[in-house]
C-alpha cells in the first residue's frame, strides 16, 4: 500500500504546477576588507521573506541552531573563520559561505617586487601590507596579477625580528585562468648583508576546479622561530594549465593581495 500512496504523491507533485523544493542561495556579505588591525565588521544581508541567517565563528558548519544573525558581526580574534548559511521553511538550506578575517602582522617595507601586469597592478608597492583585500572579484583594485614564471618579493622588517609564519592571500578562479601557485618558497636573512637561509616552503597540489571564485589563504611556517631582518619570497605560478581546462597548456595567472608576517 505504501508504494501506492507514494505513487499518488508523485502523481500529485507532477501535476501541481511542477513545484519543487528549491535551495536557498547564500547571503550577501559586506565588509571593507578581510584584513584588519583592531577589528573588522561584517554585514550580512538576505532579503527573502521567511528566512533566517545563521553563522558560526568556530569553523563548524552552521545549522539552524547556530547563532541567529541579527546585527553586524565585529571580529577581533586574529584569525577568525566566519561561516554563514541561510535557512527557511519550504527550502533546502543554502550552501555555506566562508570568509576568514585576518589580523595584521609585523610591519615591513618592500625592497623588491616583481612588477605586476599593467591591468592588475593593485596599489603598487603598497598592495601587500595595506590591510585591504579579500574580494573574490577579479576587478577588485586590491589584486596584483601576474602571468610570469616566478614572482619575487623582498621585505625589510626594519630590524632583526622574531618570525615564525607567513600568510598569503590568493585568488582562485580557474574559469578566469587564475590558479593558486604550485609552490611558495620563503628565505630569510638575519641582517641586511647576510646570506639568505631557508625559512620554509609549501607545495600546493592542484585539485579539481573550484566553483566560481574565492580567496584562499596559504601559510608557510618555519620549523622553528627565526630572527630575521629580511625576507625573500619566491612564488611559482602554474606554467601550464591542466588538461581539464579549456585553455590547457596556457600559462595561468597568479593573483595575490596580501602577505602577512607573524
Amino acid at each position, binding site marked *: 500500500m505504501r*508504494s*501506492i500512496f*507514494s*505513487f*499518488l*504523491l*508523485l502523481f500529485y*507533485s507532477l501535476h*501541481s*504546477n*511542477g*513545484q*519543487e*523544493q*528549491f*535551495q*536557498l*542561495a*547564500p547571503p*550577501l*556579505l559586506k565588509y571593507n576588507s578581510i584584513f584588519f588591525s583592531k577589528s573588522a565588521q561584517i554585514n550580512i*544581508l*538576505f*532579503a*527573502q*521573506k521567511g*528566512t533566517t541567517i545563521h553563522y558560526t565563528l568556530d569553523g563548524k558548519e552552521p545549522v539552524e541552531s547556530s547563532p541567529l544573525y541579527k546585527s553586524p558581526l565585529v571580529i577581533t580574534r586574529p584569525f577568525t573563520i566566519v561561516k554563514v548559511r*541561510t535557512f527557511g*521553511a*519550504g*527550502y533546502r538550506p*543554502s550552501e555555506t559561505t566562508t570568509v576568514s578575517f585576518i589580523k595584521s602582522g609585523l610591519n615591513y617595507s618592500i625592497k623588491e617586487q616583481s612588477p605586476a601586469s599593467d591591468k592588475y597592478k593593485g596599489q603598487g608597492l603598497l598592495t601587500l601590507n595595506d590591510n585591504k583585500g579579500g574580494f*573574490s*572579484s577579479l576587478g577588485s583594485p586590491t589584486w596584483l596579477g601576474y602571468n610570469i614564471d616566478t614572482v619575487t618579493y623582498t621585505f625589510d622588517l626594519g630590524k632583526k625580528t622574531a618570525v615564525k609564519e607567513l600568510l598569503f592571500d590568493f585568488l582562485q*578562479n580557474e*574559469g*578566469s585562468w587564475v590558479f593558486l601557485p604550485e609552490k611558495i618558497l620563503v628565505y630569510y636573512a638575519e641582517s641586511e648583508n647576510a646570506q639568505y637561509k631557508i625559512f620554509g616552503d609549501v607545495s600546493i597540489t592542484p585539485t579539481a576546479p573550484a*566553483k*566560481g*571564485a574565492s580567496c584562499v589563504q596559504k601559510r608557510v611556517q618555519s620549523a622553528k622561530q627565526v630572527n630575521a631582518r629580511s625576507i625573500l619570497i619566491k612564488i611559482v605560478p602554474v606554467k601550464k594549465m591542466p588538461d581539464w581546462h579549456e585553455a590547457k597548456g596556457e600559462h595561468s595567472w597568479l593573483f595575490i593581495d596580501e602577505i602577512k608576517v607573524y
Partner: protein
Amino acid sequence: MNRRKFLQQSAGVAGLALLPSILKSERKQDVIFGHNNKKYRLDTKWGALDFGRYPVKDCHEMVQDSKGRIILLTNETKNNVIIYDKQGKLLTTWGSEYPGAHGLTLFNENGQEVLFICDNSRHQVIKTTLDGRVLMTLDYPKETGKYTKAEEYVPTETTIAPNGDIYVADGYGKDFIIQYNYKGEYIRHFGGRGTGAKFVKNAHGVCMDHRDKNRSVVIVTSREENCFKRYTTEGVYIDTIPLPGAWVCRPVIKGDYLYAAVLQSDSRQWMQSGFVTILDKNNKVVSNIAGSEPVYNGSTPAEMYQTVKAFDYPHDVCIDDEENLYVAQWNSGHVYPYKLTPVV
C-alpha cells in the same frame, strides 16, 4: 483495468529510482516567487522535450508571435529554432545554419512577422520569415570605420523601430549600437567602450521603449556595469538606470513593465546565481524573481542578488499575451525554458 492494477502498472513505469524524490515532495510547499504585484509560480518542466530528438545547447532568447506561439532560439544546429504552444507542446522546429545563434527579435513588418537573428559565430544579423526563409543578411559594419574584419563584430541583439530602423548591439564585439534603415543601410553608430556615462561595457541587449507616449527611447544593456542606459532614437545618451548587483541581459518591455533576465549576481559570479528582475514604468525595480526584495534609499536600488536557486544563468525572458513569463537559460545543463504563471 481496475484502479489498483492501473497504479501498479504506472508505478512500474515510473520506476523505483524516483521514490526518494517522492518522499521529499511530501515536505514541499507552494513556492511563490517575486514581489509586490509581480508574483509567480514556477514550472521548470514547461519546455522539456525529448533531448535525443530535439536537443538544446544554450537557450538564448524567446519571443511570442501573433498566433500565440513561443519561439525559442538555441545555438544547437540540429534545431536552432524550436516553436512551442503556450502549454509547452512542441509545434515545429527549423534552422541548422546558426551555430552562434544568440539574439532573437520579432517585428511586425506591415502585417508580416519577421525574425532578426544575431549570430555570434557568423558575425552577422540574419532577417528571416517565421518559418526560416532568409530575407536579408547584415555583415559586419565596415561603414562605421571602427571595424577591420568580421571577427571584431559579435552581435548579440537587435531592436526594430516602428519605421523599420534596425539597431544592432555588438555586445561581444566592440559594444557599439549600429543603426540601419529598414533596407539595411547604415545610418549611425553610438555607445562603444570608453570612460564616461555614454559608453557601455558589454552591450548585451538593446530595446525600443515606447512606454512614454511622448518620446520613444532606445535602452541599451551595459551588463558588466550592472545597468541599462537610455539613448534617444538618434543615439544621444540620456541617462542610466543603475541596477547594482544585477548582470542584466536584454530589456524586454510588455505593457508598463520592463523585464530582464539577470545572468548572475555580481556578488557570486560564475556560480549559477541568476534571477529575473522587473521594473515599473518609472524604471524602478518592483520585483525580483528568485532574487532579493527590492530596497530603495533614494533613486538607486540596494545591491541585488539571487536568494533562491531556481535558475542557473537566465539569459532571456519572454512575456506572453496572458502575462506568463518564459525564461531561457545559458550554460545551464541543456535545460529547456521554464514558465512562470502570475499569482493573482
